[in-house]
């Protein structure tokens, strides 16, 4: 293992240090570790190039000399290899370190850790005193988060089993566009290839592993795509007036657009989208909430309560 990695490190150094393109024969002559027949060396070199590229190292091909019908040359541009964050302060490093540390023990831990090592290699000390005391934490129960990130960055389709409303298993194929968390849940969205439309999914409702397709760059992500605008579609479509008991129904109170005092009660207006989700949240508050308007909502609540009396009596 160390022979191969030693050769890869030496190849990287040589291609980085050179000011002109190095030809294959120059590489085979000067870099240690290329052995065997010409064919074997060629194979080794091809694989090494692929390996370095898989590490995100860009190898430039060029240097053809049309007059001499020369062979191709290779180099790595230092500016594409090296980290350049522009002008950066100790406070910036501290903030970025905080951002990386948010993943501690969570899904992107390994990735964030390697980012952190790079930040610590810049040679600027983290100025932790310059920023407030914060402990951001990324909470994610699913390890499939990494897979979604990988698929989005390589623009590869994914297939997975999704648990539907009635707990049925749905096979989904998706070109993933975006990933976001909200209220403690992770969501991803993209073009559902079977439905031919944008769909969003909650990561914790994926059953088993997400499989990344072999073809990368297989789609383009539309500019300005916003996952939340798809999640929120219709969320502010309707307006309800409800009475809530003073000092109660804190969760609804937080979302109130207006509050009018009515003695023992407060009357609030609130926006909602999906009826059944909203009714669920109203009924959680038991007799601390009374629906005033709209009348359809009032009727639905009455209907549910009536059947609850019957079913539990």
């Amino acid at each position, binding site marked *: 293992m160390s022979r191969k990695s030693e050769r890869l490190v030496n190849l990287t150094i040589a291609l980085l240090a050179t000011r002109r393109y190095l030809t294959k024969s120059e590489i085979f002559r000067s870099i240690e570790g290329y052995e065997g027949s010409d064919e074997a060396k060629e194979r080794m070199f091809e694989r090494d190039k692929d390996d370095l590229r898989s590490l*995100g190292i860009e190898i430039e091909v060029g240097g053809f000399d049309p007059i001499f019908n020369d062979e191709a040359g290779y180099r790595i541009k230092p500016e594409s290899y090296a980290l350049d964050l522009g002008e950066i302060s100790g406070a910036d490093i501290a903030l970025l370190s905080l951002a990386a540390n948010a*993943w501690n023990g969570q899904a*992107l831990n390994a990735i964030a850790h390697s980012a952190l090592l790079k930040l610590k290699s810049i040679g600027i000390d983290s100025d932790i005193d310059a920023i407030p005391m914060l402990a951001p934490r990324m909470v994610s129960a699913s390890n499939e988060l990494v897979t979604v990130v990988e698929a989005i960055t390589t623009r590869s389709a994914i297939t997975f089993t999704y648990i539907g409303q009635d707990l049925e298993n749905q096979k989904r194929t998706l070109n993933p566009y975006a990933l976001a968390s909200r209220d403690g849940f992770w969501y991803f969205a993209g073009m559902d290839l079977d439905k031919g439309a944008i769909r969003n999914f909650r990561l914790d409702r994926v059953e088993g592993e997400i499989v990344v397709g072999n073809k990368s760059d297989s789609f383009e992500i539309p500019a300005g795509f916003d996952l*939340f605008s798809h999640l929120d579609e219709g969320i502010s479509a309707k307006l309800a007036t409800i009475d809530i008991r003073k000092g109660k129904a804190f969760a609804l109170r937080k979302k109130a657009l207006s509050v009018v005092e009515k003695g023992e009660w407060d009357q609030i207006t609130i926006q909602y989208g999906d009826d059944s989700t909203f009714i669920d949240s109203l*009924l959680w508050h038991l007799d601390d909430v009374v629906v005033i308007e709209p009348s359809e909502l009032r009727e639905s609540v009455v209907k549910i309560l009536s059947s*609850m009396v019957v079913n539990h009596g």
Partner: protein
Amino acid sequence: MAKAKPAPIIHTERLLALVPYISANQGIAIADLAKAFDVTTSQMSADLTTLWMCGLPGYTALELMDLSFESGFVTIRNAPTLKSPRTLSSEEIISLLLGLDLVRESLPNNEDIASKVQTLSQRLSEKVGMNATFRAADPVSSALRAQIEQSLHKQVNLEISYHSLYSDSFTEREITPLELRTEDGVEYLFAYCHSACAFRVFRLERIQSLKVSSNTQKVISREASSENAEFASHISINSRARLMKERFGLDNAPVNEKVQIQSFSRQWIIRSVFASSGSAVLLEPGDLALEIAKKAQLILDRYPAH
């Protein structure tokens, strides 16, 4: 699953990362270096030996990296080519962007830092060079979590204002924090509650505010115990199975069958059944079902038109 990189690739990646890290942290102990890179000390020594053989073609003493680590402390000279850390990968940038989102969110009143975060996010986004959006939100305030972590570290008591979901009320409590734990994506603080004289578990996102208590009392009553014992009830699910499975924390939610649920709190069961809007019916215990029926009638009475 994300594809795993083969071992020699991971090794090469580490070797390339080591050079700038050592350059920026000259004189670092091998053991600390091993810890930073999350490998054993002997692996790190092997890595350093491999690096010692690397350099520019020619491979004379002049062309090789001047790496010394015999003393147990590592220094590097003559490594200008690899001295700069490698550019961040797309995945690394995304991990930082998401992390910065959380930092930004917790800084509504600090414009100076907020604008720094904004600048950093923008620079990183440009580097990824794609339209994909990545956004993160933390239901818990980062500042609040930092205060809890510090109080755990310093072993001081906290006064908290806590919103109890089951009783829908705020309580002020004095607690001795014992442990932070994450389960199924929810963060909990295990603590001894001096107000209740019992061990209590608090969900972080429901702690409204906290401050360090001037009280240094740490006596935890030996008789302290969770006063409510867990008990079983049974429900029947008739629709919206996925939602019911999530609401009641079930492993499976077969429709129209008797399903057992576990809880410490009657209050939670009652509210959960109501918030199921009829998709779940409580079958047992009978007295609890009757309480639900009565409560439903009580609420109905507030809708006089019917």
